[in-house]
């Protein structure tokens, strides 16, 4: 009886092994194909270190005096764009997240429609959103705020919907049993459960938006990107260096602030 039992143990079946081997081959093939498609020009590649060194020499020393005159205000505008954009995105993302979460909205077509809107928002890069809004509202910070907001909606909405769907059912069931109306049970049963996730997502997205809004100026949507674009166009590399440094400092500070707040939240 036991002699006939298969006592050999193998991690994968032969089919699985063939499958894994094929998958590896496919990954290698994809990489080879990709390298061939991007058409690297050998001459440009060869003198890249030289070009790079040249650029860095032109950037050094950074023209720090330029900060007061042309960078500071733009930097503050960038932070305003990031903050307002994040706030605005939440006003759109919260309703969409509620409609997407299957434990809140039980009508599948609505879930799908809300989710489609979230995916649409994510599928367009914030630079593209900015181009659209610059075309509609003209260049300036308003276009930047709207671009940041529209790009963030999909991100925030998706994460929020997931947080809502992951909440245990029990407390909401208790609210139902108590006879609480929908708004009451959302506020006292659902909200306390998603609150940490909500603030976590808000901070995370604000952090990302600070970085994203720094480049929006390249297409004229306000902020420090405008200053960067001007400096590059006029070959003021020492100014470019100042601006890049300023962005770096702000991003690092944002990172530290967000990490500190999050520590306290959770």
């Amino acid at each position, binding site marked *: 009886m036991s002699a006939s039992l298969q006592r050999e143990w193998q991690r994968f079946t032969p089919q699985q092994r063939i499958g894994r081997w094929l998958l590896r081959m496919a990954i290698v093939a994809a990489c080879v194909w990709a390298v061939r498609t991007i058409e690297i020009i050998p001459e440009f590649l060869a003198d890249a270190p030289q070009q790079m060194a040249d650029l860095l020499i032109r950037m050094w020393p950074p023209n720090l005096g330029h900060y007061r005159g042309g960078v500071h205000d733009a930097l503050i505008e960038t932070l305003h764009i990031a903050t307002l954009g994040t706030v605005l995105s939440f006003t759109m993302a919260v309703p969409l997240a509620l409609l997407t979460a299957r434990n809140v909205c039980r009508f599948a077509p609505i879930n799908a429609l809300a989710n489609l809107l979230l995916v649409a928002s994510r599928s367009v890069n914030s630079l593209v959103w900015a181009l659209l809004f610059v075309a509609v509202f003209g260049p300036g910070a308003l276009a930047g705020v709207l671009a940041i907001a529209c790009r963030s909606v999909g991100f925030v909405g998706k994460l929020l919907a997931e947080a809502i769907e992951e909440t245990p059912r*029990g*407390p909401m*069931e*208790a*609210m*139902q*049993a*108590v*006879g*609480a*109306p929908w*708004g*009451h*049970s959302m*506020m*006292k*049963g659902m909200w*306390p*459960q998603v*609150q*940490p996730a909500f603030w976590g997502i808000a901070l995370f997205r604000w952090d990302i938006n600070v970085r994203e809004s720094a480049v929006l100026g390249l297409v004229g949507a306000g902020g420090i990107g405008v200053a960067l674009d001007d400096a590059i166009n006029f070959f003021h590399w020492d100014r470019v260096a100042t601006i890049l440094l300023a962005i770096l400092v702000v991003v690092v500070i944002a990172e530290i602030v967000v990490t500190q707040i999050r520590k306290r939240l959770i």
Partner: protein
Amino acid sequence: MSAGLSLRGLSKSYVPGKPVLRDISLDFAPEGVTAIIGPSGTGKSTLIRCINRLVEPTGGKVLLDGQDLVPLRGRALRLARRRIGMVFQEYNLVERLSVMENLLSGRLGYVPLWRAWLRKYPEADIARAFDLLDAVGLPEHATRRADALSGGQRQRVGIARALMQRPALLLADEPTSSLDPRTAVEVMELLTTLTRREQVPVIINIHNVELAKRYCGRIIGMHQGEVVFDGPPEALQASHLTLIYGGEGWQE
């Protein structure tokens, strides 16, 4: 005001053709503690959840003081539910809220949204919450978060929250199953004395037969979605237990 409950031909099938509850008709007096016993998966939980419509019955009537709850929708259903308290096996507290706020959640069927939002509950509700906290033996825990409590303490909060509703009927779905034996006895003791004091009739799902016999005035035995025993604890014989749970060897 305590209320009498009657079930008439109550049935439930989650999958068509596979009934979990078969044509249950029962009458509950507006007082006293009734235990429903039976093996796992026999429909005890479904029965109790059909009463406050957390589960939608497939057929039959649930009459609370003569009013059929089954056809109720929206606001009417909410008004009926707030008269029925419920205690859950897994407590179902909101973990990140304080004990006090969990208790006051029992009033959400009564207070307007702005009061709940601003935490401006009526004085009477707050006084009642402190009373109940004393009654369940957690007077110093009002401001602690629910997730800082032990299982027994959480269930006490669960009971207090249900009583905050001033319910006409209390349902308890396996209130002691997640607790250790000693805490289970303490919680049963508390549940039965408090509801006697408040004159609320109780229906308890329980799979501990000893606890049921000790604390309940009436025992209903279920087997495969049907009532196979209904009587006082003294009348519950070994033969009945065989009928309810099947087999014999376990009864020692």
